[in-house]
């Protein structure tokens, strides 16, 4: 049988796609905190810690990480939340959700950030603390 080959737009376009997946930008040589970290929200069930850095570049998805615990020397718990970088923005806002904290408790924490690959951005952050309501 004579096979009809059609030049369908679908095959053309899915082959040479208008590359539109999240644009990747160059990794910044140094990533540092410009603002924060501070407590954006502290409710019974949800605490949000927020800080701003220069745009770290690299993977479009980054994770903000909070290492925390009830004693300053033992930050054994970790929480992390994803964000998506905007390549056109000079800075990036990291925000991390901490669920299920104990009420009326003081927590100590340090923040960090990684690329989706797991590679660290190389932040240095001091020890901070907050108390839940």
């Amino acid at each position, binding site marked *: *049988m*004579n*096979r*009809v*080959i*059609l*030049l*369908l*737009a*679908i*095959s053309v*376009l*899915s*082959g040479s*796609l*208008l590359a*539109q*997946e*999240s*644009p*990747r930008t160059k990794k910044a040589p140094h990533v540092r905190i410009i603002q924060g970290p501070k407590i*954006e*929200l502290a*409710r*019974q*069930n*949800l605490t*949000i810690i927020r800080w701003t850095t220069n745009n770290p570049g690299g*993977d*479009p*998805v980054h994770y*903000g990480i909070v290492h925390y615990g009830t004693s300053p020397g033992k930050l054994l718990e970790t929480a992390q*939340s*994803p*964000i*998506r*970088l*905007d*390549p*056109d*923005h000079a800075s990036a*806002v*990291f*925000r*991390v*959700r901490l*669920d299920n904290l104990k009420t009326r408790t003081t927590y100590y924490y340090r923040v960090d950030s990684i*690329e*989706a*690959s797991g590679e660290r951005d190389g932040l240095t952050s001091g020890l901070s603390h907050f108390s839940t309501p």
Partner: protein
Amino acid sequence: MKCRTLVAVALGSVCGFALWASIYSPQVSAQTNESPKPVYNPYPKGILPPDLNSEIARVLREVDLVESRAITRWHNLKPPILTGQPPVLKNTGTEATETLGELMMFDKHISPDKNQACASCHMPYAGFSGPIPSVNLTMIAYPGTVHFRAGKRTAQRHTYSPFFPVLQYNQEDNLFFGGNFWDSRSTGYLLRSPDAQQAQGPPVDTQEMGFPDTACVAFRLAHAVYRPLFEEIWGKGSLDINFPSETEQICATPGGAAVFKGNTTPVPLSPSDRTLANTAYDHWGQSIASYQQSVQVSAFSSKFDAFLVGKYTMTADELAGFKLFNGKGNCNSCHVDGRGTNLTQGQIDTSNTAQVNPLFTCFGSANEGVPLNPRDAFYYQDKPDPYGFTPNPYGFGYVDLGLGGFLRSGFGSAPNPNASWRKLAPTVDGQMQVATARNAALAPTQCSTTEAPGPYFQKEFFHNGYMKSLKQLVHFYNTRDKYAYPVLSGHCPAGTTEKVDCWPVPEVPNNVDMTTGNLGLTDEEENQIVKFLETLSDGFTRPYRNRDTFTGACMKGGSAATQGNEFLIPTPPLPPCASAICGVAPVPNPPIRPPLSE
């Protein structure tokens, strides 16, 4: 429960005012106008909208109208000339294929009862999303060929869906992109077009068009009026299949029926006929994809497209919204428009990342932390229907894990063709595809907005239809975390208003994206973003085909911020996530649905 009566402007042939029946009035009656079919109604009172039968009938009339227009176009089309080596359908090959796809999408015979077409859930005037305002307002999922089995998610707009690449895991960026469907389960791994593969889903989806066997599509195509066009494009003999006499009866019985005992190929065909039927099914998908990618559907004819080439000047509000979309709103991180953020009025964008036809998606996925919508019809289908099929045995124990559910080949999704992806499931639980922002605002000619006070066309937004207006959607991005309460929908504390200053907890708390959630936008800035979203609707530079076919009622009154709030119902106490969903390795981490204490 508040039970407001909305005044709706009845348009189409009739003019004047009609009453929008309250949702809590009588239950949908069981009869249909044809042979009495057993009706499946596991729903508590008030879940199905009372006008469901008449609305399904209205849409079918509209579907038939579009089909008849397409038939006329086909008859007026100059036949393409098959020539060259390899042979090509010269001159009108493209238009013929697109027209074939359109004829298929609006063909109600592609369902056991001959009562449902693709377009029953995807009409042009809704940007090819759900055409029934009362369904969008209440049960959110669309009923299928069997009345009233229903799906679980909103009928996604499919404009621009053919532009999504084959689902892949980008090793450099460490993320998934591409595929079709909210959970990307239509990967396109074989046909190399997620959209063509997608079109192979609904005809055999038990809650949609519901054939028991993919060969039933070839069977009905063999009897279609447009069979000559199919054969012209895909070859003489492509539908010459020896269907045994019982095929009619098999194909009139919906999939999932107990009589099939789980057999997915009940039509007995010889191996060579089976191959023909499978090939015809591929061509079904490819023809539809070509229609969906055509300028009739994915039109690039919005104000924004005109603006890009200097043929439209945005209003001050639209331009402000555009800047917020790229700037403070952060929308551009996912709904990529490839543009800089520093435009002034009347200026043409020259940023080096600019693309000619931005699609306003990154093809990726994210968990936006959308609350569970207890009106979703899926939760109530935990009993067998008259055919012995139970759409959702887990009831409210069902949790929609999105992309994570698919990677596990999970319940309610599809088999994952790439085992190496499975281990990544916990990192994408709760993620849904970043829908293109284009045509979110598209509405029928008579009620050309989605926003109250209108006259407006009631749409539904996000995968579970929790949002009823774009204002709400933007307000959610802006304040989800600011007004986060440890409650489920329908249980906001006294003194707060759900969706205004109270947002219930995310259905899936894992991997909630934090790019947005507390943007610090003012009320006016939110409205400007809505205005900008409205510039993304097709039909500005030339009319959008068949946008004029809506014959239902527009709605009027109220405010966009609380649009549809009178239909909120309290979420019942939730059982733990079913082990068939959350117990499938690699399990969600942390575990999902340790039930909330209410």
